[in-house]
């Protein structure tokens, strides 16, 4: 890998991805003796520390409907984050925690957000732990729901986020469960009905 001429957004994105561990991964590929740093210990997201009297923010979370045919919204109060990145993390933590009502979860068991970064072009780079892939049940329906629950939740709550690039353990993935192309950023999609 090398550093070279990049456009500003591309460079920022590249930089970030490198920081998210892609550099580490590639470094490993290129230098088999290289050992990446230990990932930080991951803990389950804690409930939002909404102190009494603290102002929360109403957000929309996208979960699967009981038939797993479409995404449905669930509203929830979360504490106001200071930065968009922090807000994004809180949204994803809520998504990971799962639905409160009759809706079905979309994030595989044990998956957590490792890193998150939003570039100046509106692309959120969300780096999940390996469970996002390893514990995914498979199937196109479930794969679409997982991907777009993340994308729609971020994009519909954060004006800054226009698209989402998914990463797993710091690396780009080709697909999450073997069907949908995850090599490039996803734009929000609120229905899977056929579009041309």
């Amino acid at each position, binding site marked *: 890998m090398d550093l070279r001429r990049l456009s500003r957004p591309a*460079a920022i994105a590249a930089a*970030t991805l490198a920081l998210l561990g892609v550099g580490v991964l590639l470094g490993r590929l290129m230098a088999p003796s290289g050992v990446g740093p230990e990932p930080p210990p991951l803990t389950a997201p804690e409930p939002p520390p909404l102190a009494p009297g603290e102002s929360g923010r109403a957000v929309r979370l996208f979960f699967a409907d009981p038939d797993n045919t479409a995404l449905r919204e669930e509203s929830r109060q979360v504490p106001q984050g200071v930065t968009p990145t922090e807000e994004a993390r809180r949204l994803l933590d809520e998504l990971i925690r799962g639905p409160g009502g009759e809706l079905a979860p979309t994030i595989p068991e044990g998956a957590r957000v490792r890193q998150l970064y939003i570039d100046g072009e509106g692309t959120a780079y969300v780096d999940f732990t390996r469970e996002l892939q390893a514990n995914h049940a498979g*199937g196109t329906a479930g794969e679409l729901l997982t991907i777009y629950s993340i994308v729609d939740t971020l994009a519909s709550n954060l004006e800054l986020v226009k*698209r989402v690039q998914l990463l797993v353990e710091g690396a780009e993935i080709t697909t999450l469960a073997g069907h*949908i192309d*995850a090599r490039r950023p996803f734009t929000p999609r609120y229905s899977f009905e*056929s579009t041309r």
Partner: protein
Amino acid sequence: MLLLSVRSVRAEDSRAGAVEVLHGDRWKAIPTEVIRGKEYVPLEQVAAVTEGTVQRSNGRFVLRLPKGALVLTENVPRIQVGSREVALAAPPVLQGGQVWVPLEVLTIAMGERYGEERVFWDDVRRILWVGSTEHTLRLVRYRTYPEYTRIVWETSRPLEFVLREDETRTLTMEVRGGILPPALLRPLPVNDGLVRGVEASQAGGAARFVIQTEAARGFTRAFALKTPDRIVLDLYRGKAVPSGPAAELAPTPPAARTPSAGPAPSPTPPAGPSPGGIRTIVIDPGHGGRDSGAVGSRGLKEKDVVLDIALRLRKLIQDRLGLRVMLTRSEDVFVSLEERTAIANRAKADFFLSIHVNAAPKSRASGFETYFLSKEPSDSDARASAIRENLPLTEEGMGARGQDSVKAILWDMAYALYTRESAELAGMMLEELDKILSVNNRGVKSGPFFVLMGAAMPSALVEVAFISNSQEERKLQDEGYRQRVAEALLMGITKFRTRYEKRLGVVPASPPG
């Protein structure tokens, strides 16, 4: 902002120790230190090469540049660059009274100071250098693949090149109009068992690169790619020849090899519908081998179900329609997603049908659905595509990205050409499944399917049932049910063929027997 390739460095990594910064004809070595597994440089040294000054107050470090400033905070892995905040691989630390920052801060600062488009990082020789417009050659890099070694020269504009090779172990790449910056005059050691190294020299207005190889060198090909402009040389090992997806970039014909420049050799654009109607169908049983696909609660595996259905369908098509059928796999083996459509493209198939079984945990989902390829709206977003083409994420970095962009254009064409047919194919499959199976019809949907993306033909993906639904899993275990699914798919194919050929004005051949 530049940066990059913050290769992870172990404490014992001999490469850690220093990086060199080259600006004009001034070289400066900057000591590095490995702190908690990351390579660090002293912030003062960063200031020294960027004409900056460092201010420290309460754990905040400000690197003031002639224009702008970078703000860091002790133990916080972020850097503020102007109004933007960027994550760092590691936080700044105080050690021995000095502020140490991760190596990428050096590249960020240099990019900010001299313009990111002028700052380059040579990872092999560990030189960070500031380029000037007269230097038309920017980077030389290489990557070793199992079958070949790829050497890439990045240039500031398209340059003509001549590759000279004979039976000796030496090849010469002459880049006309190639002006080498001092950093590239140093030899590039490769030593990957095929290529020993590359030595550069400036011969008047041309740059000459002498590539030393081992005796076992085989096929070579050289071609130009764009965005960024670059010259690519692939040296194959022994008897290996280009194969698989990489072969879509045709080898440069010998005649075009000297001198050659300009756009990359383009694969033949996908052909239109075959004039004789449908002759060849490629059926793709999903997953396989180490990839089981979805697994039901009774242990039934998607890969086994879809293979069985595909084998049944193949027999039905051959017997009843007399068409040529190819399977992307006919046993329990792993086949990559790229390879699946490559098989169909090589077979010049008239359409591609991928068979899958659905899953949805913690849900009562059941039934069948069919899909066709729709692209992400962002795919046509030029900006987004520029970003992703520049992301050095593939194994060899930008080179493959550039190839992707060439392919992307072709697939755009294929996409426009085949989307209508694909939607129709998906719709007919759904209709027939609906007639034969008395289960929930979930409709036709679309999405950016990896496995359909490379198909230069109409394509569809069917999800025949939910293996996560115990009732449906039980059905899938029943041979009779799998046969009915295959029959339904056959009916869909028959219908599609009739409509397709009618549109083409082809009289269908009578089925045998």
